[in-house]
């Protein structure tokens, strides 16, 4: 089970630029480390993060092993209308995690 922490204002004025912070639990194993027995630890990372706003993509990030464990991503978007922001993380070994947040715009 992956845990997700998202910080989105519940309410915003139309046209206001809002900051969104996201944190997802994931080891981001680089693929460059070895375990105690000297065996290579296979890469296991989140490769992509996408945010959609009422179905339209507003932000996307492609991540590489240099992103810290438990990826923290901060970005912004313009509050256009009330609705739902959906966040999706996908990665190695079929990792997939979706979370959403409601926003009221007036």
């Amino acid at each position, binding site marked *: 089970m992956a*845990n997700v922490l998202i910080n989105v204002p519940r309410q915003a004025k139309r046209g206001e630029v809002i900051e969104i912070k996201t944190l997802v639990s994931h080891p981001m194993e680089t693929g460059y480390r070895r375990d105690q027995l000297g065996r290579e630890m296979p890469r296991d990372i989140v490769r992509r993060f996408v945010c959609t706003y009422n179905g339209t993509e507003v932000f996307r990030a492609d991540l590489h092993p240099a992103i810290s*464990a*438990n990826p923290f991503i901060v970005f912004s978007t313009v509050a256009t209308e009330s609705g739902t922001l959906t966040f999706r993380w996908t990665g190695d070994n079929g990792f997939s995690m979706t979370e959403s947040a409601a926003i009221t715009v007036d």
Partner: protein
Amino acid sequence: MRRLCVALGAIALAVSAFAAEIPPSDRRSGYDFMSRETRAMQDDDTANPGMLSVLEGGTLWTRKAGGAGKACADCHGDARTSMKGVAARHPSFDAARGRPVNLEQRINACRVDRQGTPPLAYESRELLALSAYVARQSRGRPIEIAVDARTQPFLDAGRATFHRRQGQLNLSCSQCHDDQWGRSLAGNTIPQAHPTGYPIYRLEWQAVGSLQRRLRNCFVGLRAEAYEYGAPELVDLELFLMWRARGMTFEAPAVRP
């Protein structure tokens, strides 16, 4: 490298026979020695990765488990009130065991005796989550360790471990943390070793870990034998360190480098 040799040499030479206790007005949390960036990571709940563990602990708190089919919440209710200050007074004396137990052991005692489930392994994701969740409820509370005739011998044992020179480096914890705090050791500032924020998210681990994990790292640092998780010696050391930090503000889940 050279600087480190000099620094360690100075520490080894500065043998103080009477390592004095740090007076309350000079006590500093590890937080105070961290960079602005690392402090910001701890201060902002939405940036502090330790909060992911707290979040998971909150889910486990209400999950029914074991033969009794009871969740923590069924007996303890809202953790925000029932667990307030609890982590800040652990380790605490457990009459049944006749010795102090730390927070993880207390939680496991409830798992076994009250829920009828096997204990959770030390440093397992679930135990860290539950202890982070319980510890979070003490944030902002003063550390208060009750000392009486029953706990005194354990406190003394912990103090003795802290002051004993050990390992291949033949240094005591006290030589660094009572006598040399604030000095730089090859880029790291030596803190006072107050366990104000455990479990912590440690950047070096890239994960949440307990005070015992941190203490074991220090024994390894001294190139001394590290006690096993749950060893009475480690719990006594925890008790001493928490008592030594009495009155300081609890700040779990802290972030440390």
